[in-house]
C-alpha cells in the first residue's frame, strides 16, 4: 500500500491566448479566417516581419514541468503571485482540465473546493440547495442526510432553511455554501482560496474547521494568499511562480522567501568604498545589519524573537556629540516608531575619531507581522545637522510561526495593528 497520495511528474499546461484565437469562434469566423490568414501572413512577411509564421497562434505555458510528491495525511500549502499557475494546477489535479504534458497519479477519493456555492440555484430553498450542492461536490444522498443538521448549524441559517436562496443575504449565502463544502469528507481535499468568506467570526470558524480536517489525517492541498493561514495550517509548502515550483519545504521558510522576493534587498547593507558611503563631515555610514540575538544576519524573524539592528559607522572628526537613531516603517509607509541611541557611556559626550557600531535590540512579541523597513540616521547636535539619512537601509520580515507563544494566540485570521505587543491580561469571575 503506497504512502503517496499524489504524485506529479512533469505536469505542463499550455493555453492559447491572443487575438488570433478567440475563446469561442463562430463558424463564420473560422471559415473567414481560413481564407484570409494566408494573405495576412504574406502581407506581414512582405513588410519584413519574419516572425509572422509563428506569431499567429500565441500560446503560454501556464505550468512548466511540475513534479512533486505529497504523502497521505500531509497538509500542503501552495503560494505564489497571481498568474503563477496555482489555480491551473488545482484544476488539473481535480480533473477539470487536462494537462498538455506529463501526468499525475492520485491515490484516493478527491474532493475539490474551487469555489463556494457552485451549482446553487436561486429558486431552490436552502434545504434543496444543500442536497444539490452536496451531490455536485460528490456526497451521496445518505451522507447528506446524516450531516444535514450539522451543516445547517454550522451555517447558522436554521430559521431560513426553507426559504429560496435568492432571498438570502450574501453573507448567509456564502455561509451556507461553505458549510456544505466544509462537510465534504474525501481522502484528498483540494481547496482554492475559499476561506475568505463571511465576517471575521465566521472566517475563524472556517479556519478552525480546516485545521480539524488536517488533524483528521486527510491529505489537504491548500492555496491561499493569507500567509498566516498557510503557516498555521500547513506542514509543507510550495511556492509557484510563472508555472514552476520555485521553492518547497517548511512553510515558514517558503513564506519568508516569497515575501522577500519582491524586493531583493537583504538583511545587510554595506558600503565598502568610503567615498561613496552616505555621510556628512562628522560621520559616515559603513554598514547596517539586521541580526538575531546571537549576531547572525537574517531577514526573517519569528514574531517572538528579538531583533538586533546595528549600524557601523566611521567618525571622521572628533569633538562632536552624535545622535544615532533608527526609524521603523511598515509596508504602508507608516512610521511605527523611532529609537534614539541612549547608551550612557556615549550619550551626551563627544566621540573620538574611529570606527563604531551602535546597535539596538527590539524585544520579541512587540513588532507586528509583515515587512519592516529600517531607516538609519545620525545627526549632530551642535549645530544640528544631519550626517546621513538612509531609507530602507535594511528590510526584514516578521512572521508568526505556530509553535511559539505570541500575542496572536489561537487566532488565525488577520490581525490589524502596527505593533503587536504581548501584554498580560487578568480575568476573574466577579459575579456568579
Amino acid at each position, binding site marked *: *500500500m503506497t504512502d503517496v497520495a499524489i504524485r506529479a511528474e512533469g505536469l505542463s499546461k499550455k*493555453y492559447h491566448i491572443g487575438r488570433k484565437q478567440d*475563446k*469561442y*469562434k*463562430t*463558424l*463564420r469566423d*473560422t471559415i473567414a479566417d481560413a481564407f484570409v490568414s494566408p494573405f495576412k501572413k504574406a502581407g506581414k512577411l512582405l513588410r519584413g516581419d519574419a516572425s509572422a509564421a509563428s506569431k499567429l497562434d500565441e500560446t503560454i505555458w501556464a505550468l512548466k514541468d511540475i513534479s512533486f510528491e505529497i504523502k497521505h495525511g500531509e497538509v500542503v500549502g501552495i503560494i505564489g503571485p497571481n498568474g503563477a499557475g496555482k489555480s491551473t494546477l488545482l*484544476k*488539473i*489535479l*481535480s*480533473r*477539470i*482540465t*487536462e*494537462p*498538455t*504534458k*506529463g*501526468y*499525475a*497519479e*492520485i*491515490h*484516493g*477519493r*478527491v474532493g*475539490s473546493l*474551487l*469555489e463556494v456555492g*457552485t*451549482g446553487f*440555484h436561486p*429558486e*431552490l430553498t436552502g434545504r*434543496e440547495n444543500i*442536497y*444539490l450542492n452536496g*451531490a*455536485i*461536490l*460528490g456526497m*451521496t*444522498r445518505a451522507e447528506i442526510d446524516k450531516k444535514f443538521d450539522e451543516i445547517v448549524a454550522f451555517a447558522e441559517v436554521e430559521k431560513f432553511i426553507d426559504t429560496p436562496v435568492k432571498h438570502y443575504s450574501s453573507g448567509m449565502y456564502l455561509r451556507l455554501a461553505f458549510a456544505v463544502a466544509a462537510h465534504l469528507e474525501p*481522502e484528498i481535499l483540494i481547496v482554492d482560496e475559499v476561506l475568505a468568506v463571511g465576517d471575521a467570526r465566521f472566517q475563524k470558524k472556517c479556519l478552525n474547521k480546516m485545521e480539524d480536517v488536517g488533524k483528521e489525517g486527510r491529505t489537504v492541498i491548500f492555496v491561499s494568499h493569507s500567509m498566516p493561514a498557510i503557516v498555521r495550517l500547513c506542514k509543507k509548502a510550495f511556492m509557484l511562480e510563472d508555472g514552476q515550483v520555485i521553492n518547497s519545504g517548511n512553510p515558514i521558510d517558503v513564506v519568508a522567501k516569497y515575501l522577500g522576493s519582491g524586493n531583493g534587498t537583504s538583511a545587510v547593507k554595506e558600503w565598502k568604498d568610503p567615498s561613496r558611503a552616505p555621510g556628512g563631515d562628522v560621520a559616515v555610514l559603513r554598514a547596517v545589519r539586521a541580526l538575531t540575538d546571537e549576531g547572525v544576519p537574517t531577514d526573517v524573524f519569528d514574531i517572538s524573537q528579538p531583533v538586533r539592528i546595528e549600524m557601523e559607522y566611521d567618525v571622521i572628526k572628533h569633538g562632536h556629540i552624535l545622535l544615532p537613531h533608527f526609524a521603523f516603517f511598515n509596508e504602508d509607509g507608516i512610521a511605527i516608531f523611532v529609537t534614539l541611541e541612549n547608551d550612557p557611556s556615549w550619550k551626551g559626550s563627544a566621540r573620538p575619531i574611529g570606527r563604531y557600531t551602535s546597535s539596538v535590540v527590539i524585544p520579541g512579541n512587540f513588532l507586528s507581522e509583515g515587512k519592516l523597513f529600517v531607516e538609519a540616521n545620525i545627526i549632530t547636535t551642535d549645530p544640528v545637522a544631519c550626517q546621513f539619512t538612509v531609507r530602507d537601509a535594511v528590510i526584514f520580515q516578521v512572521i508568526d510561526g505556530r509553535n511559539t507563544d505570541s500575542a496572536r494566540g489561537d487566532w488565525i485570521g488577520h490581525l490589524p495593528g502596527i505593533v503587536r505587543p504581548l501584554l498580560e491580561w487578568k480575568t476573574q469571575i466577579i459575579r456568579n
Partner: protein
Amino acid sequence: MKTETPVIRIEPTKGWVSLKLREIWEYRELLYFLIWRDIKVRYKQTVLGIGWAIIQPFFTMVVFSIFFGKLAKMPSDGIPYPIFSYAALVPWTLFSNGLSKGANSLVSSSNLIKKIYFPRLIIPVSSVLSGLVDFVLAFTVLIGMMLYFGLAPTANIIWLPFLIGLSIIASLSVSLWLSAMNVQFRDVQYIMPFLTQLWLFATPIAYPSSLLSEPWKTIYGINPMVGVVEGFRWALLGTATAPGAMIIVSTLVTLVLLISGSLYFRRMEKTFADVV
C-alpha cells in the same frame, strides 16, 4: 484497515476516448439531482405552472387542426385530424424540448464545468430526461382525447415504451453533437429555433407519411422522429399503415447518431473547461 483505494491517472488523452459508462453509473445520484433540479425550477413563479407542459402541444394541435385539417383538408389516415396531429405532437414535444435544452446545456452549465469534476455526459442526459414529466402530462391529455373521440388503443401499445425510448435517445444523440459543438461554435444556439421548426415540418405530424409512395417512405425513416411519430399513431390509434421498414431505418439512424455523438462528445470533453 486500508481497502484498495482507487488510483486515478491524470494525463493528456489522445484521439478517441472511451465512453466510461461505469463512471456515469457511479455518478447516477448527481444525474438524479440535476434532473430533479430542472423539474423543480422549471415552472417556479409561473401562474400556469405545470400547465405549460400541456399548452405547447395542445395549442399547436389547435392551430394545425384549423389550418391543415379544416382549411387545407389534409388527409389523416382515417382518424379525426385533431387527435391525429396531437398523438404525433406528444412524442415530438419530448424530442424537440429535449433537443433545445440539450444543445445549450453545456454552455448554460459552464459554472459547473469550470469548477467541478464529473462525467460531462450527465449534463445533456439530464436536460433530455427532465422533459419526461412534461411528457407524462401531455400523454395524460392524449388519453383524455382518445376517450373523447371514442378511440380504443390497439394491442400494439406494447411498442409504446420502445418508441418513447427511441424518441429520448434520438433527442439525446443529436444533443450530444450539438452541445459539444456549441461550446466551440456558438452559432449552434442561434440555429436551434430554426432547426427545430424545420424538423417539425420534416416530420409527419401535420400530415401523414402515407402521402409518400414506397421507396421514399422507407427512406423518409432517416429522420428518426418519422418512425417514432408514425409508430405512436399506429400503436395508440390503429392507423392502417404499419410502420415496418420505416421504423427499422429510424432505429438504425438513431443508433448511429448515438454512438457517433457519444464518441465525438467524449473526444471534445477535454476542451470544455478551457473553452466554455
